[in-house]
């Protein structure tokens, strides 16, 4: 049975990825800092998914070591989904050092350090998917987030070259997805955002999960080093 690591597994997209990939019969090493990971694990197990939960802070050496140890015990590593991320939005003129540093550390630093820590464990034909964001194209009030998600694009390209041909590396860039975090946005603001989307709706976490699962699978065996925007056409208008 192949092993896939999913970070940010307690969140909307991460949980959906764990369900989709785990539903294909793979073992999921589910990683999250939040205690709510335990609830997600219960849901996954109820659906018959084999889950190894790791509650860890990926910005620390201890957190990274905990994930590596779990993977070593679980079996051959077939995939990694770097999904964990945070936002600390503000206009650049008002952005604090703390807001910048926190977002960069979680969204880019932890991804890079986890990927390199797991690098020796990847199996032949394995795959990595980095969850970037449509914000890598630029987004008001998100200098820190945009920089971190843009950095993931470069990381994806460079690692795709470095890890080929054994491991493929791709990125997805979701737009407005109906996660718990997004649904806290005031309804009026949310509607204005939806009005700018040609497909006239938010995306569902499951739709992102389907793309991630495709990029992890042999069905995408000749695709590496690319960013796949999933945003309902938002970047076209």
């Amino acid at each position, binding site marked *: 049975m192949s092993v896939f690591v999913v970070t940010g597994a307690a969140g909307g997209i991460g949980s959906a990825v764990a369900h989709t990939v785990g539903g294909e019969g793979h073992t999921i090493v589910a990683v999250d800092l939040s205690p709510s990971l335990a609830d997600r694990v219960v849901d996954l197990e109820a659906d018959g998914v084999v889950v190894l939960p790791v509650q860890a802070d990926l910005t620390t050496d201890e957190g990274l070591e905990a994930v590596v140890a779990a993977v070593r015990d679980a079996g051959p590593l077939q995939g990694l989904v770097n999904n964990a991320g945070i936002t600390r939005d503000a206009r650049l003129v008002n*952005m604090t050092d703390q807001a*910048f540093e926190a977002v960069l550390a979680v969204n880019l630093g932890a991804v890079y350090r986890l990927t390199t820590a797991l690098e020796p464990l990847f199996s032949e034909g394995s795959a990595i998917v980095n969850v970037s964001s449509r914000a890598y194209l*630029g987004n008001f009030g998100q*200098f820190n987030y945009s*920089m971190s998600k*843009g*950095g*993931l694009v*470069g990381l994806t390209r460079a690692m795709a070259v470095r890890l080929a041909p054994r491991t493929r590396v791709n990125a997805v860039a979701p737009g407005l997805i109906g996660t718990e975090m997004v649904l806290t946005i005031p309804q009026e603001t949310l509607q204005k955002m939806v009005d700018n989307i040609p497909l006239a709706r938010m995306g569902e976490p499951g739709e992102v999960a389907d793309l991630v699962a495709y990029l992890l699978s042999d069905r995408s065996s000749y695709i590496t080093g690319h960013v796949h925007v999933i945003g309902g056409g938002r970047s076209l208008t």
Partner: protein
Amino acid sequence: MACPGVAGRSYGDLMQIRLPDPVPEYARLLPSDPSAPAGLVFVAAPAVGDGWSAVQAELTEAFELTRSAVQEDTPVLYVVDNAALLGQTGPGNAMVATGLLSAARTAAVEGAKRGATCNVLAVGSDSDPGDVALWVDHLMSSTAVNGEVVRLGSGHLGKALP
């Protein structure tokens, strides 16, 4: 004001040129215009290496200097290595270059209504220093281009672009 700890210089007490140490050959003529306007030119280190702390330091410095520049509504230009932007020189250099590109796009969005620009100049390691200086002067003095990347040389031709 030059940034502590790095090679850098002010120009006419207005334009700030942040240079890495060592200074890349292509940046040795910056700036060439004695009447250079206020603003920030951030020349990224072309070989920051693959350690996270070096990447973090480079991006953090860019953030701090950019925030100061946009608080004054002055233009910002990031000068990056084209091969790094394409992901051809390792993950550390790639994260810096593409991180700066995305940051520039966001700073451009935020500054657009005030006429403050933020752009990226991607240069090849063999780019002529005179050409680099010319494009720096142009991108810093014009408000016609915003949130864009201008690539010098031919290293990007036929490539998937970030």
